Structure formats: structure tokens, C-alpha cells
């Protein structure tokens, strides 16, 4: 087992965990987006609410969501740890003039990640926590189904507030930058760098980083503009 | 003193194998009882330290740089020769031997050179096994090129960075022994004296360049792998730190200095741009394959490269093609250098200093197209552009000769031992294999041959004959040596004169370059001798070194080296005065053929001039080791 502990305590091992957890969260984002898109269906929220119930009750999904929570925490924890180590690696005196020979996003993943985290906390307080334990979400029944929580209406309530939508959109911008570096960076950390496939990874990475947060942002925007 | 070269008797191609058999061996279990000091970690030093560590000896290795990987072997560009005959073009050990002897203008030992050619093939095998990424053909086999005018393709190379790759190979072998605990490495540590006890070299005195601490190290044998002394000229292609101190200290402790005046001057270097110039950069000799060397027929003061393109063909003097119709621009290094000097002496030199000639690629670009030239020389053109700001695709390059390599060095016998028992000299630090002129791609070969394949055999013969009892550095000889070093350092620091070390070094360099450079005459050499003696007096009364001895003090480091260069400079002049013939890199104006070519005098000077130190300000004593040629016939070179 020593080898495993060595791995987890090495800088590369920790980077591996960052990359793997990051990639998992990227997949999660895609799934999450697929669900959110149902907010735009004009069916009084039926499909969205049924989907929400499915996501909170299916045992398999529940297990995966626990893994997801764990990986979010792991991603944050290791990031904090590595950031501290990386900061101290510079030594007692920093540079008077700092270089800018890398992309802004790549240098500021910590800040971007922190902003995304703050957004996540707000987001989970308003939706996730309310869905699970809150009293703000009303019950609703569709033809032939039992009562389900009307998360749809709850979301619409929030997305009718201009400041909230603005916050949401801005945070998606930060998420985009986080992904812009994170997506391809994860592949590099895993050692998946090959002249033949790099263009694909780079293209998909860039497309994902732009399209997914953009789609996320479009949902509250369109709800707000249509209200 | 009887100079015994210890060349084994018998046929040329059996000498080394017979000698290896006759050498005494140290029992494997006893090797760990012997300590060996290796000074310098270039190709010779790193390969020797690693190989001796592998055999089981305890090695202490020293380098003045911050890492052994920085030694100046790293800067060698072209390649390394080996008689592999992979190209099926008629190469053989004998041909490499013959070319090297002839190229050295018959001033090297047959026995040494043949051994060098023999082990050359092992070097390539060794380097490949270490993971040196030599250039390869599409079939996966090693690629070769013809280099320095050789008739066969025997040069192995790694793009333009062969020295780097070979040194990193040797450095990796050294690292392995450091990690195994067989080599203890001392970085940023400079050797300042050899300690001789009962006539044998038993240790060295060093200075830690960070703390200034002077320390003694004892051992059973000392290997000096400290490179050449081209920096006596101040401006050379050597690294700024390259110095003669270790060799010179050894000389003063009794090691004879062989052929000090033999200096190689490389024709294709980037010219001096002003007084601030601190070093010269070599451009690969291969440029002369396609470039044409010229100056204007009549002097034009301060001619710039940009204006040169407007000079009509009829007003240009392609002087190498004119004087040497059959070899043209590809004449050997010394001939090309000397002719560049002559046209500049006539006032026809170009550039702001007038000390440069054009190397023009416009015809080659017209003939082959820019892309062909770019493929061949792209990196060199880029380097040139970076340093000078001129674009050689559009305007001619400017080049001028610069000091590149010193064939002279500590006199060693066939076992690489100096005249001090237990003190060895390897690589460029010794005088042995290149005679009066070194062929291209042979320096790397010699450094690695000495370190990997010769010293591991010959050192055993010496150590087997001595007790393994360790010597304490508390002995009087060590204490005295430490005191001497400290006093010398103290003395230099106290002077607090008016001139910087660099200023004095530059003055020495100008004198050496003017009178003991490409072309030497008796009157000039006598002038130089006087000037150098005056400079020595001035150094010891007017140098200004700030700071103390107990800190990182780069001025102090330089000062110690320059003081030794000044003394060496005088010996070089003496040697050049003595050798009243022209051979290889040494051209005496008094000794030329009616049409101005070098005239060798085999009846009078077919010997190694080995100089013995006789005390402060005393003339050195000349000892001659006659060179015997049993296998090759001596001929005059001709490139007409």
C-alpha cells in the first residue's frame, strides 16, 4: 500500500486526482445542463419536475450524486492544498515584475474556482437545499401522477429577479474560463497529449467551455426576458 | 630530465593491446581503498570520474561551475570522429590515425594517435548505450557526415550540439556514481594547488567559491581534466571561466608543459563588435562549404554588410579562391585564418573595426534556392542574426578568426601521467594527440577516449605499485600549500590598485593576439615577452579587487586566473620563439616557402618542446622529446 500512499502524496498523484475529479465534474455539468434545458419546455414544468423527482429518488442516481459531492469537495480540498504548496515553492521573496507569458485563465484557476465555489454555495442553498429540505417549494400534481415538488415554479420565481439572473450569467462566465483551462489541462495531466488527437481535445475543450456555460446562462436569461 | 614517453615497442596496431596486458591490475577488492581526485568535469573529467567510480575507486570530483554539466565541452558543435566505417567509404582505424597525424602536421606521437583511433569506435558504442541521441537515418541507423575537409564520412553528430549531448551522457554516468556513493562531487569549487609529497602527487588545495573556504583534499592520484588555455588571449571561443590555473599550478609543482605555443585559430567566428566584447562565438566550419570569402579589392573604410551587396563582382577579391584554386574556400583552418589576417593587415578588412571579411551566400542562394540554404544552415543564420542584427540571407556575413583550442598542455606519457608521478592530465589539458593542429571533431573524441578507455587501465598500473594507506591532510606539505594559497589570495586583495582584472586581462590578450596569434615573428615575440613581463609587474602592483576572500567574490576568482595566464603567456612566447619553423597552427614569418606558405623543418623541430619550471622569474628549461615516425612518411601540406 506504500506505493498508493506515495502516489497520493506526490505532486503528480494529486494532480491526477484533480484531473479525474475535474473530468467527472465536466460530465456532471453536461448531465445537469440536459436537465436544465427542460425548463424551457412549455409544459407547465411537468417534464422538469418529474426529472427532478427522478434525480432525487433513483437509488443509482443518488449514489452517483454522493460521489459527485465527494469529488467536488476533493477537487476543492486538493486545489487548496496544491495552491498552498505552489505558493510556497516561489520562496520567501517574490518577483518585482511578474511575467504574463501564459494565458490569464491558466494562471488564475484558484480565483476562478473560488468564484465558482461561491456560486455553487448560493446555487445549492437556493435550489438544491430547498428541493431536499426547504419549505419554499410547493407541491404539484399532473394528470395521473402523485404529487411532486414544483421546483419548476421555484426556479422561475428566482429567474424573474434581474439581479439573480445577472449573478448567474456572470458566474457562468467565470465557469467558462475555469473550463477553458481545466478541460484541456486535465488531459495534459493524464498524459493524454498526442499530436494526432490534440486538435480534437483542444477543439472539444474550447467548444465545451464556451457552449455549456453559455447554454446554462441562456436559460435564466430567456426566462427573465420572457417574463 | 629524461622524458620517457613509455610508448610500447612493437607494431603500431598492437601497441595498445600489448600495453594493456602488461599494465598491473588492482585487485577488485582493493580498489575501494584508493582515492582518486578528478579536477574538471568536462568530457574527460566526467567520463574519467564515472569510469573510475564504476571500477570501485573512491572518487572526488571538482568543478568551478555550479554544476558539472556546465563544463565547456558542452559548447562543441560539429561532431565526434570515429573509425566505424559505417558508410563503407574506405575509412579505417589506420586512416583516422593517418589523417590525425598528418592533420597535426607531424608533431604528435604515432603510438598515442593510433590508440586514439582504435578506441574511437568504442566511444560511439558507449555513448549510444548511455542514451545519447545521435542523428540517425530513416532506417534507424546512425548518420555520419564528412567534417573539416575529411575525405570520408566518419563524424557522428547530434544536430549542432554534439558536445552537449556527449557531455550530458558523461554527466549522467557521473550522476549514477554520485548516487551510488562512489563519486563525491564538489560544485563551485576551484583547485588552486597540487600537493606533492615525496615526489608524488597526493592531493589538491581548493577554494569553495561560495564561502571562500580553503581546503585540502588528499588522494592516491590526481587527474587534471581542466581543459585548454585559450582564454590567455582574453577573447576566444572558450567559456568565460575556462582557465589554466590547475595546469599551471601543476606546472609550477614540477609537471612539464608541452608545446604551449600550439594554438588553434578558427576562421569562422563572429567578429569583435567593440571594446565591450567579452567573448567570441564560433560559427560552424561547414558554412565554408557554401559561403564565399571575400574583401573589396581596394580598401573601403568601415564598409557595412548592407553596402557590400552594391559592390560589383569585378571589385571583389575572393582571396581564398584566388590563392588556392583547388581547395578554394575549403582550405584548412589555419590557412583560412592567416589569409583573413593578411587582407585585414593590408587595410582591406571590412566592418567598423576593419577586422572582418565577408562570407557571402548570395551565389549559393541563387544556385540552390533559399530553402536549401535554410535547411542546411538555418540555425546558424538565426544565431548570426541574433548576435549581429544582420540578416545573412540578404547581406553577407562578416567573419574573423578567433582562438578556439590549444593543442599544447601538460606533457604526459603514454599512460597520461605528467612528469609528477600520480598526477595525470586528460583531454585538452594535456598536449598529447593533436600535434600542431587539431582536426575538426577530434577534440570530443580525445576527451572521451582519455576518460572512458585509457585512464581506467593506466591508473591501475600506478596505484597497484603503491600502498593504499590514506594520507592525512594534517601533514606539513598540505598545511604549507594551504598557507601559500591563502597568502597569495591575501596579497592580491591588498593591492587595491587602479585597474580592474578585466582590463589587465584584455591587455594581455591584445599582446598575445598581436604577437603570438596567427602569425609570429622573432621581433614581435621579443616585444611580447617584454610587454608580458611588464604586465606581470603591473598586475601585482596595480590590480583592484574589491571584497574579501571569505565570500562569493567573482573578481577574486578572475584575478587568480589572470595572474596564471600572464605567466603562461610568457611561456607561450618562449616556446614560439624557440620553434623557428611553421607547423600547424604555429606560423613563424621567418619560416615560409617563397610563395608565402608554412615551411616545416622536420630535421630541426620534429620534437615535443616540454618546458620545466625553474622558479619565480627564472627562464624555463626546455626538454625535447624527439618524435619518431616509423609508419608515416612526413610530407609538406599543399592546398594550391
Amino acid at each position: 500500500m506504500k506505493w498508493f500512499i506515495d502516489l497520493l502524496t506526490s505532486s503528480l498523484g494529486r494532480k491526477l486526482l484533480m484531473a479525474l475529479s475535474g473530468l467527472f465534474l465536466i460530465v456532471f455539468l453536461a448531465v445537469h445542463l440536459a436537465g436544465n434545458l427542460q425548463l424551457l419546455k412549455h409544459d407547465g414544468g411537468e417534464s422538469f419536475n418529474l426529472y427532478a423527482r427522478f434525480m432525487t429518488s433513483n437509488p443509482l442516481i443518488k449514489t452517483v450524486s454522493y460521489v459527485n459531492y465527494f469529488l467536488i469537495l476533493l477537487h476543492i480540498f486538493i486545489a487548496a492544498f496544491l495552491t498552498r504548496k505552489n505558493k510556497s515553492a516561489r520562496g520567501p521573496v517574490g518577483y518585482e515584475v511578474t511575467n504574463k507569458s501564459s494565458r490569464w485563465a491558466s494562471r488564475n484557476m484558484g480565483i476562478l474556482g473560488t468564484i465558482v465555489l461561491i456560486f455553487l454555495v448560493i446555487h445549492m442553498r437556493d435550489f438544491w437545499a430547498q428541493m431536499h429540505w426547504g419549505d419554499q417549494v410547493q407541491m404539484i400534481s399532473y394528470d395521473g401522477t402523485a404529487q411532486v415538488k414544483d421546483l419548476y415554479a421555484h426556479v422561475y420565481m428566482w429567474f424573474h429577479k434581474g439581479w439573480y439572473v445577472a449573478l448567474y450569467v456572470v458566474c457562468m462566465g467565470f465557469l467558462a474560463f475555469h473550463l477553458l483551462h481545466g478541460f484541456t489541462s486535465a488531459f495534459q495531466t493524464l498524459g493524454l497529449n498526442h499530436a494526432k488527437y490534440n486538435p480534437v481535445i483542444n477543439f472539444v475543450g474550447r467548444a465545451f467551455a464556451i457552449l455549456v456555460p453559455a447554454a446554462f446562462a441562456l436559460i435564466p436569461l430567456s426566462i427573465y426576458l420572457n417574463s | 630530465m629524461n622524458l620517457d614517453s613509455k610508448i610500447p615497442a612493437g607494431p603500431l596496431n598492437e601497441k595498445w593491446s600489448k600495453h594493456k596486458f602488461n599494465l598491473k591490475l588492482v585487485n577488485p577488492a582493493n580498489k575501494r581503498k584508493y582515492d582518486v581526485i578528478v579536477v574538471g568535469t568536462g568530457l574527460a573529467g566526467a567520463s574519467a570520474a564515472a569510469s573510475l567510480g564504476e571500477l570501485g575507486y573512491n572518487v572526488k570530483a571538482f568543478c568551478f561551475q555550479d554544476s558539472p554539466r556546465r563544463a565547456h565541452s558542452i559548447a562543441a558543435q560539429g561532431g565526434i570522429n570515429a573509425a566505424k566505417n559505417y558508410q563503407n567509404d574506405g575509412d579505417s582505424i589506420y586512416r583516422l590515425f593517418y589523417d590525425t597525424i598528418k592533420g597535426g602536421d607531424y608533431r604528435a606521437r604515432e603510438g598515442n594517435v593510433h590508440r586514439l583511433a582504435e578506441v574511437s569506435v568504442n566511444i560511439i558504442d558507449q555513448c549510444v548505450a548511455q542514451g545519447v541521441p545521435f542523428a540517425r537515418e530513416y532506417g534507424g541507423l546512425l548518420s555520419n557526415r564528412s567534417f573539416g575537409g575529411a575525405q570520408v564520412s566518419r563524424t557522428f553528430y547530434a544536430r549542432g550540439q554534439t558536445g552537449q549531448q556527449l557531455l550530458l551522457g558523461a554527466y549522467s554516468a557521473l550522476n549514477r556514481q554520485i548516487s551510488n556513493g562512489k563519486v563525491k562531487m564538489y560544485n563551485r569549487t576551484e583547485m588552486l594547488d597540487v600537493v606533492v609529497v615525496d615526489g608524488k602527487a597526493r592531493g589538491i588545495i581548493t577554494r569553495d567559491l561560495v564561502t571562500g573556504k580553503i581546503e585540502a583534499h588528499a588522494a592516491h592520484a590526481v587527474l587534471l581534466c581542466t581543459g585548454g588555455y585559450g582564454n590567455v588571449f582574453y577573447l576566444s571561443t572558450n567559456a568565460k571561466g575556462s582557465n589554466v590555473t590547475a595546469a599551471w599550478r601543476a606546472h609550477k609543482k614540477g609537471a612539464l608543459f608541452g608545446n604551449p605555443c600550439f594554438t588553434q585559430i578558427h576562421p569562422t567566428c563572429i567578429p569583435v563588435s567593440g571594446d565591450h566584447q567579452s567573448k567570441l562565438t564560433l560559427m560552424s566550419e561547414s558554412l565554408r562549404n557554401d559561403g564565399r570569402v571575400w574583401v573589396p579589392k581596394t580598401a573601403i573604410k568601415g564598409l557595412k554588410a548592407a553596402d557590400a551587396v552594391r559592390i560589383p563582382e569585378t571589385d571583389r577579391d575572393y582571396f581564398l579562391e584566388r590563392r588556392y584554386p583547388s581547395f578554394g574556400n575549403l582550405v584548412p583552418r589555419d590557412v583560412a585564418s592567416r589569409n583573413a589576417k593578411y587582407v585585414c593587415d593590408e587595410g582591406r578588412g571590412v566592418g567598423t573595426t576593419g577586422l572582418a571579411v565577408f562570407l557571402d551566400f548570395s551565389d549559393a542562394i541563387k544556385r540552390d534556392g533559399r530553402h536549401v540554404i535554410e535547411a542546411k544552415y538555418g540555425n546558424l543564420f538565426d544565431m548570426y542574426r541574433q548576435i549581429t542584427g544582420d540578416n545573412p540571407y540578404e547581406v553577407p556575413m562578416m567573419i574573423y578568426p578567433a582562438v578556439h583550442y590549444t593543442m599544447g598542455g601538460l606533457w604526459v606519457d603514454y599512460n597520461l601521467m605528467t612528469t609528477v608521478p600520480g598526477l595525470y592530465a586528460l583531454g585538452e589539458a594535456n598536449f598529447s594527440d593533436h600535434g600542431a593542429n587539431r582536426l575538426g571533431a577530434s577534440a570530443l573524441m580525445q576527451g572521451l577516449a582519455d576518460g572512458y578507455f585509457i585512464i581506467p587501465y593506466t591508473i591501475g598500473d600506478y596505484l597497484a605499485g603503491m600502498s593504499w594507506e590514506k594520507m592525512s591532510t594534517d601533514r606539513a606539505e598540505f598545511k604549507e600549500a594551504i598557507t601559500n594559497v591563502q597568502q597569495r589570495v591575501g596579497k592580491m586583495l591588498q593591492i587595491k590598485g587602479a585597474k580592474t582584472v578585466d582590463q589587465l586581462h584584455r591587455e594581455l590578450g591584445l599582446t598575445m593576439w598581436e604577437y603570438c596569434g596567427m602569425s609570429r615573428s622573432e621581433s614581435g615575440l621579443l616585444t611580447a615577452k617584454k610587454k608580458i613581463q611588464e604586465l606581470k609587474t603591473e598586475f601585482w602592483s596595480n590590480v583592484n579587487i574589491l571584497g574579501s576572500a571569505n565570500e562569493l567574490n567573482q573578481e577574486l576568482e578572475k584575478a587568480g586566473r589572470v595572474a596564471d595566464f600572464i605567466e603562461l603567456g610568457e611561456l607561450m612566447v618562449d616556446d614560439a620563439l624557440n620553434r623557428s619553423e611553421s607547423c600547424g597552427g604555429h606560423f613563424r614569418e621567418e619560416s615560409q616557402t617563397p610563395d608565402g606558405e608554412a615551411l616545416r623543418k622536420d630535421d630541426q623541430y620534429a620534437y615535443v618542446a616540454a618546458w620545466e619550471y625553474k622558479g619565480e622569474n627564472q627562464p624555463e628549461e626546455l626538454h625535447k622529446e624527439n618524435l619518431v615516425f616509423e609508419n608515416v612518411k612526413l610530407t609538406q601540406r599543399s592546398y594550391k
Partner: protein
Amino acid sequence: MKITVKVWRQANSQAKGGFKTYQLDHVSTDMSFLEMFDVLNAQLIRKGEDPIAFDHDCREGICGMCSMVINGRPHGPLQTTTCQLHMRTFKDGDTITVEPWRANAFPVLKDLVVDRTAFDRIQQSGGYVSVNTGGVPDANEIPIPKKVADEAFDAATCIGCGACVAACKNASAMLFVGAKVSQYALLPQGKPERKERAERMVAQMDAEGFGACTNTRACEAECPKGIKITNIARLNREYLGAVFTSYEVETGGGGE
């Protein structure tokens, strides 16, 4: 031209350092950056001030000894070594800030001189092929595809200057280690030890206190020898592959 230089001065590794500003009135555009420092030092000595200590040796861009961070960039604005940087890159009246490499693993010894022996120790931990002198096969015994040899060369061309560490916001040595590991991982001669090598060199790299790679690519942008970050990816691959598969052969059996 006239140049102002703002240089980090520090008497020794223990001392507290600070910036000092110097004026140079006659700088030639043909000077190399280090020659400008030579002139400055001569000026300081004449005034009785301690000259600035800086590392340099070959002055032709290959030994890797020179190490100045110039206006925030290791080796200055061009992708080359400090010794190959020329003053024509700057303008009359410029103020140039010069600092040493900054990394915990590279402590400052004096002024601009830093201790890079951490790199040596990383190499000693596994940057070699374990072959003794002599007794090796013929050089042409194992053909190596040209492209593989070229790629190994591109990695091996690293001069060990440490600009990658100096440039990296995390002072990570991944490009340096990646280059060495890549060279041997690509060549058949390096294959027998590739797993142990990757593990040992990474362990030593971590022990020296270098930061972790966050793939910013600053190292690649500043490397004077153009070493690519594909070498870092290969190091990741080699290391992770090694961690999960090394020791597949039990050692210690077999007897005499």
C-alpha cells in the same frame, strides 16, 4: 544609448536583499546583456562599490549557467538565454528590472547567483542509463527510428538553466524533469529502467520543494531551447503508468 537598471542586490544567502538602481550612459546596441553588466561592474569597481555577482560561463547559449529574470521574464523578452540577448532589444532610456531566479529550491547565494544543485540531485536520482563503461553492444545494434531519435534529441537539448522554474508561477520543475524522463523513455536504451526512473525523479523533484504543474505553459513560452510541454504530458504518463505497474517482477528471489 542610456539605460537604467534596477538590480536585486543581496550580500549572501542569509542577508536581506533589495533593489538598487544604476545608470549606464554609453550602452552600445551591439552589446550582449551580460556585456552590459560587465560594463556596469567595471563602473562599480571604479567607484569602489561591490560589483554585481551573476552566473555566466559559455556566453554562447548552451551551458545554461546564465540566469537573470529581466523585466519579469526569465532570460528577458526573447526566447533565448540571457547571454544571447542583445541590447538592441531595448530602447534608449529604458529602465530594466533584473532579478534572480525565484524559487524555494533555488536559494539566492549572492545578488543574481542562485543555487541550482536541486537539479543535479534530481538527475542523480535517476537521470541516467545504468551501463558501465565498456562491454556495450555495437552502436548500430539497435536501430532507432529517426523520428524517435529526433524527438529524444529535442528533449535532451535542455540546458538545465532553470528558466522553466523561474517562469512558472508555481516554481515547478516539471519541464526539466519531463525532458529528461522523455529522452530516456523514448530511446530503447532507457526502457529497462523507465518506471523506476520516473518514480524516483518525481519523488526527488517533490522533495526539493518545487511546485506542482498547473499546465499554464509559461515554461514552454520561456524555455530558451524550446522544450515542449508534450514532455510534461509524457512525464505524467510515464509516472502514472509506473506507479500502477512497477514491481510487477518480484525481486530478491533466485539465490546466487
